[in-house]
């Protein structure tokens, strides 16, 4: 992992199109501004983790689910 130290209002570039700027540091919270092309999706990593867990949960299907559906 690359580790960089930055101050408020400083930024880093990822490639030549993605800029991440430190907007504010308040206690243990850091506010980031992200400039990226539209084709690059930016998500909180919790979103990805939640979807991964949801996918695994969705694999648990009771064998009688077809009866379950018909009884709806």
């Amino acid at each position: 992992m690359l580790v960089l130290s930055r101050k408020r209002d400083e930024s880093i570039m990822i490639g030549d199109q993605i800029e991440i700027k430190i907007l504010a540091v308040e206690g243990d919270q850091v506010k980031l501004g992200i400039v990226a092309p539209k084709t690059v999706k930016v998500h909180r990593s919790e979103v990805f983790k939640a979807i991964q867990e949801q996918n695994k949960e969705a694999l648990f299907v009771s064998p009688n689910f077809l009866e379950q559906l018909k009884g709806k």
Partner: protein
Amino acid sequence: MKIATKFLGEVEIVEQDILTFEYGLLGLKDEKKFVLLPIDANLPLALLQSIEHVEIGFVLAYPFAFKKDYSFDISDEEREQLHIEREEDVLTYSIVTMKETFQDSTLNLLAPIIVNVNKKRGKQIVLQDNKSYPLRYQIGISEGSAK
């Protein structure tokens, strides 16, 4: 060829029907070959079955049957990844998490499964935050035509 399925027993499939999920599914990166199988003609549901692992099978729902105003954009990058040329080749499904009853079960509207039926490509995409749909949309409160 014959494959074993999670709920439908052994099913005969043709090789042309195999969908390639180049990027796997979130949390299941190595599962790349699936088939879509009908579950019951009267229900807007399908089974997404791995052709390699019988235990990897998802119940999918046709989301517009449960939420008629569901809409989102597919990014240019995803269009390329799925080799999408024409809108009519695109099918959208939501993964269903089954609960005790169907009404309590939920749809994942945040990360739909997109299938290019023409090129036999599939991908689970994550919708952008600003238009966020829930990860657990309860079927019982649905407002679509299947209600």
